[in-house]
């Protein structure tokens, strides 16, 4: 555990749930492409990314379940990774708004992945040096996966931006849809403070990467300050998350503890 700054149990739990929710919701969105990808090979590629992200979410949920169990006085506490994923309501989810946005077309899916993976990349780079050993280990493992997600999604951004008139038009439309959700990534919620992460540095690195990929994609967009939407990190979500959870949690809620 962090030696210099005392992190409360609540703060750690919320932080872990936030990281897990980000990965789970993004992974679930990607899984919606399964069987619908534009071409077989890319269908598999995005399903692989979905599995990577859901794997990350599992690691964070499993870790979060430990302090949650310890912090309640009830004789039986059934908190598990599954209950955290399938039995919490919209307001308890702490993912950022970006990941819950609908997939839209391929351009929108790609750009969302690119924004998010680039963010995860710089975040995990910092977390792999965290004082918390467990967090550190999860981040180091996930960083390898995320490195590939960044590579895959940036190449697609470049292909679409520097492709045909149609692909460029779609990428620009995706930018208009998604840009307002990127500001929230770098606006720390209370539980993100004291986690030894430098948000200013992260934002700088993220901006630099996004600008360099946009330049290669011949996309000329204003990436300076603009109004942005926020609230996801504290449970104030867009309507999309409710619909997503309804579909994702239906089976577990209708048939509790069902197995197959």
């Amino acid at each position, binding site marked *: 555990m962090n030696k210099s700054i005392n992190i409360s149990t609540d703060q750690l739990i919320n932080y872990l749930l936030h990281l897990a929710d980000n990965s789970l919701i993004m992974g679930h969105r990607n899984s919606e492409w399964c069987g619908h990808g534009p071409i*077989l*090979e890319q269908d*598999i*590629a995005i399903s*692989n990314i979905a599995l990577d992200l859901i794997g990350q979410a599992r690691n964070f949920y499993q870790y979060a379940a430990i302090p949650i169990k310890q912090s309640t006085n009830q004789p039986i506490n059934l908190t598990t990774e599954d209950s955290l994923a399938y039995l919490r309501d919209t307001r308890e989810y702490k993912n950022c708004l970006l990941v819950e946005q609908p997939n839209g077309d391929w351009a929108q899916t790609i750009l969302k992945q690119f924004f998010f993976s680039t963010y995860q990349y710089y975040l995990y780079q910092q977390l792999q040096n965290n004082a918390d050993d467990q967090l550190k280990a999860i981040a180091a493992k996930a960083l390898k996966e995320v490195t590939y997600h960044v590579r*895959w999604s940036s*190449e697609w951004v470049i*292909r679409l931006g520097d492709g045909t008139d149609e692909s460029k038009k779609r990428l620009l439309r995706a930018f208009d849809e998604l840009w307002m959700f990127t500001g929230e990534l770098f606006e720390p919620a209370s539980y993100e403070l004291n986690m030894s992460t430098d948000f200013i540095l992260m934002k700088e690195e993220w901006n630099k990467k996004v600008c360099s990929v946009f330049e290669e994609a011949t996309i000329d967009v204003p990436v300076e300050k603009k109004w942005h939407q926020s609230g996801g990190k504290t449970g104030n979500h867009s309507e999309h998350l409710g619909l997503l959870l309804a579909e994702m949690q239906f089976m577990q809620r209708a048939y509790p503890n069902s197995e197959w």
Partner: protein
Amino acid sequence: MILLRKFYYGDYGESKNGAADISSDNSSSGVVTEWPLWEVFIRSKQGLDHKHAGSLHAADAAMAIENARDVYTRRMEGVSIWVVESKHIHASNPDDADALYDPANDKAYRHPTFYNLPDAVKHM
């Protein structure tokens, strides 16, 4: 619109001699919008050779390698990937099989099985 034509290895077409038919590529009547086909070779371990793993579609070599990574190395099958566009692979014509392969049938002496190995030689 870029016209793409699909090629398969073994698709010796008109030329008969095993080369993929690339003479009539862009002028073919059917507009094919699919990406070209690539053959994928995976090396499973350092020191072993690359083996043919299968084929896939991709717009260019960089995408073919990434697709190969996603399609053929999901279960830790490989440490190295080669890709080559299928149209560059030339295949022998199955019609020639009698002449090409059957003559080797009765030449058992070409197998190195008629030597007495000294006991000291192991792992042969």
